[in-house]
Each structure stands twice: as structure tokens, then as C-alpha cells.
């Protein structure tokens, strides 16, 4: 479980996060949604320690990540997997080298054990046939799958996905969503997904936090989102014509 408590973050005079408090549960796919510029990415960066919050703290299963020393943070980071918006695969490495990288850096595995783990992870994302390809030779969906394989290679307790479906066609997006749901249940991870793709939110989320102007404007279960009275959330959810048609009649 990840708990964030009273996080504030400003850049100069611009307040981006204003007392954010949220809980992301273990074994669930927890979505953070909101308009562009609402503070989703900054919040994620504060959680994983790429940015330091001005106030507040983050707990990873009760361990205060914000006040930890760099050495202790490093141990927690080994338990974190992250799928980036642009996949962030290492250009100079092949698919299998990308997946192998965290194992080489931090595990005590032998070469053979690493080979087995890499094959397992690639098979899990259905990419066992492309271990020697370079990232530049992959499609957007394949890159995302390699990103997921790399993220799960160290058996993480926590998985963060930043806009996992951006730039993907609807069918590939569904494949990625399903993969995120499956590995979350399979590994019992705490998964946090940043997204503004409503199709993904409906398909894959267990819990949802809606950010507006740097504050959590609504939080609840997937089933509650479609019937909420929160005007800001409704404006966001039913912004498209398709979603308007799907809106339940009162």
C-alpha cells in the first residue's frame, strides 16, 4: 500500500500540488486521472522521489520514503517498477538487455538465472520472439510491453505507469490495460496508473483519484465514478460525445 499525506509542491510562484492526500491499495489498479496540467505527473514524481515535495510525506507500506536517507531510498526503489509515457527504453541496448539491466545492477543472480528471468518476463508480455531487437525497431505497443517486462523483472511491489496508452491504437491500448490488470493481480502489486484515457479508466481501474488544480477533487471506486454528482469530475468524464452518449440517465 502507498499512502501520500498532505503533499504540497510549487515551482516558483506556481502551486502545482496543494495538500494531496491519497491511499493506493495493494493488489489493485489505482488510477489517477485529471486534465493536462492538473498535477498528475508531478504527484507521481514526488511519490517515486524524482521530485522532493515541499511539505507532506509518502509511505510505502508504512515506511516513510520522504524522510529516508539516500541509501534507504535506494532499497525501496529496487521494489519499484515504472512504465514511462515514452517507454524510456535504453536506446543502445536490445530488448533482452533492457529487461536484464535491473537484474545485472541489483540482483545476485547467475548469468543462467538472469537468462531464465528475462525469458520469463518477455514471455509474460508476449515478446519472447524479439529479444535481439533494438528499441528503434519496435512499434509503440511493443515498446510499452518491453517497458512492462523491464518494470516487472525485479518482481516489484509497486508499479507506476505514466500514460501507458498514449500514442497507441484502441486495440493495442486494451492489450496493455489487460496486461497491467493481470500482472497487478498475479504479483499482488500496488499499481498506480496516471491517465486521462477514459476508455482505460473504465476498463482497468479499481480505484480512481481525480485531480483538479493540484487537489484531489474526487476519489472512489470505478463503479461510483459514472454516477457521481461531482460536477468537475462529470465535466471531465463526459467531455467527449461518446462518453456523453454512455452517461446513465437519472
Amino acid at each position, binding site marked *: 500500500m502507498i499512502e501520500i499525506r498532505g503533499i504540497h509542491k510549487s515551482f516558483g510562484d506556481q502551486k502545482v500540488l496543494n495538500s494531496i492526500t491519497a491511499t493506493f491499495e495493494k493488489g489493485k489498479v489505482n488510477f489517477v486521472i485529471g486534465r493536462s496540467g492538473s498535477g498528475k505527473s508531478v504527484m507521481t514524481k514526488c511519490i*517515486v*522521489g*524524482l521530485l522532493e515535495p515541499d511539505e507532506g510525506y509518502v509511505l510505502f507500506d508504512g515506511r516513510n520514503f520522504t524522510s529516508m536517507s539516500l541509501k534507504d*531510498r*535506494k*532499497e525501496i*526503489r*529496487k521494489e*519499484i517498477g*515504472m512504465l*514511462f*509515457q*515514452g517507454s*524510456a*527504453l*535504453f*536506446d543502445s541496448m536490445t530488448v533482452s538487455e533492457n529487461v536484464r*539491466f*535491473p537484474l*545485472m*545492477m*541489483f540482483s545476485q543472480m547467475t548469468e543462467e538465472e538472469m537468462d531464465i528471468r528475462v525469458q520469463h518476463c518477455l514471455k509474460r508480455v508476449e515478446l519472447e520472439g524479439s529479444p535481439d531487437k533494438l528499441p528503434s525497431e519496435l512499434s509503440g505497443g511493443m515498446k510499452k510491453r518491453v517497458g512492462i517486462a523491464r518494470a516487472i523483472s*525485479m518482481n516489484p511491489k509497486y508499479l*507506476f505507469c505514466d500514460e501507458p496508452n498514449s500514442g497507441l491504437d484502441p486495440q493495442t491500448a486494451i492489450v496493455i490495460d489487460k496486461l497491467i490488470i493481470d500482472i497487478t493481480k498475479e504479483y499482488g502489486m500496488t499499481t498506480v496508473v496516471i491517465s486521462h484515457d477514459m476508455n482505460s479508466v473504465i476498463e482497468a481501474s479499481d480505484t480512481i483519484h481525480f485531480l483538479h488544480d493540484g487537489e484531489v477533487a474526487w476519489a472512489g471506486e470505478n463503479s461510483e465514478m459514472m454516477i457521481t454528482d461531482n460536477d468537475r469530475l462529470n465535466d471531465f468524464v463526459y467531455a467527449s460525445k461518446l462518453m456523453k452518449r454512455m452517461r446513465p440517465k437519472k
Partner: protein
Amino acid sequence: MGVIFHIGRYTQFIRAVLRKPDKWAMFRKLLMSELNIIGVQSIGIVVLLATFMGAVMCLQTAHQISGWIPVYTIGFTVRQTMILEFSPTLIPIILAGKVGSNIASQLGTMRVTEQIDALEIMGVNSRGYLVLPKIIAGLVSIPILVIFSMFLGIAAGAGIAYITGVSSMTDFKYGIQVDFKTYDVIYALIKTSIFALIMTSVSAYHGYHTEGGALDVARSSTKAVVYSAVIIMVSNLILTQILL
């Protein structure tokens, strides 16, 4: 204010770079790769520059000496110019253009495509992992390239003197031996090592702190070359005053 900010951030950057590598096996692998990129792949440009500079230096000196100035001055001038200034200062400045821009654009691209963030989230000290092998490779390979360019420049001077007949080989050979001080070579290598450190670390600093997109990567690359060259020139003056 800006200068103080950059000095502070550069100091923090170097402190993080100099931390013990997370995995020595990975460090050795990256070091070998960087030795190839910074050292081996720069041999061509060093050969070209040193050869032509040595030859031109020989012809220019021959053009200027007449009457009472002995002919062996040609060999002497070529040697002194190559050892004291051309090889230890100009070669690193030229390499700042080639190697420095390469380092800055590589790190800048990794930054804007979130590859550096990916390393940090995994728990890797990204500055140490990416930058330390480049600095060590620069400190090892650039002095070797500079020594090589000294020999090559003097040999090219001798070659052109022989071909054009501006000096006999006996005079040239006497010129490159007369009043030779080993300290001049030591001075040159001290300068080179410091310039190699400046070139690799300043370029890495600019690349690592790139913010934005493709245009900003290009800007970082330009900054890396310009700042490296300026700092090398200023350091050259200070070091010359201190060491000679």
C-alpha cells in the same frame, strides 16, 4: 547569481559522479566502450590536425628565419610549439567539439526521453553510472592522444622540411634535441589531464541538466562545446602562470 548557481550545481554533480559505482562489472564494460568512443574514434582527427599543424609550423618558421638565425630553429620551434601549446591545448579544444558535443547530446537525449529518470527510479546513481566512465576514459585516452600528436606533429615537420628542402635532416634533428626540458612534457601532460577533466565533466554537466525537447538537446550540446572551450582557455592561462 547564475554563475554561483552553476558552480554549486556542478560541485554537487561531481560529488555524485565520484560515488562508488553500483556494480564494478558494469562500470568496466562502460569504461571500455567510452575508451573506444573518446579515444580510438578520435585518432583520425588527431592524426589529421597534428600532421598538418606540424607541417605548417615548419614552413612558417622557415619563412621567417633568415640571416643570423640558425636553421635548426625550425626543428626547435616545431618541437616547442607542439609540446607546449598545440598538442596539450588545441587538441583538447578540438576534441571538446567532437567528444564534448557527443557526450552532451547523448545525455541530453537520455534526459528528455526519460531514460535518466528510469535509471534513478531503479535506484541507479545515474550520474555515476553515465558520467564517471566518460571522465575516466577522457583522463586516460586524451593524454595518450596528445603524446601521439606531439610525435606526429614533429615527424610531419621533419617530413615537410625534407620534402621542401627548407632544412636538412641534421639541422632539424639538432633543433628538436637542443635545450630539451623533460619538464615541458610534464607541464603539457598536467595541462592535458586538467583539460580532459574539464571537457568531459562540463559537457556531461550540460547534457545531464537538459530540460525540454530536441531543441534543448541541441542548445545543451552547443553550450557544452562553448563553455568547455572558454574554461579550457582561461585555465590554460592560469596553469601556464602557475606551472612555468
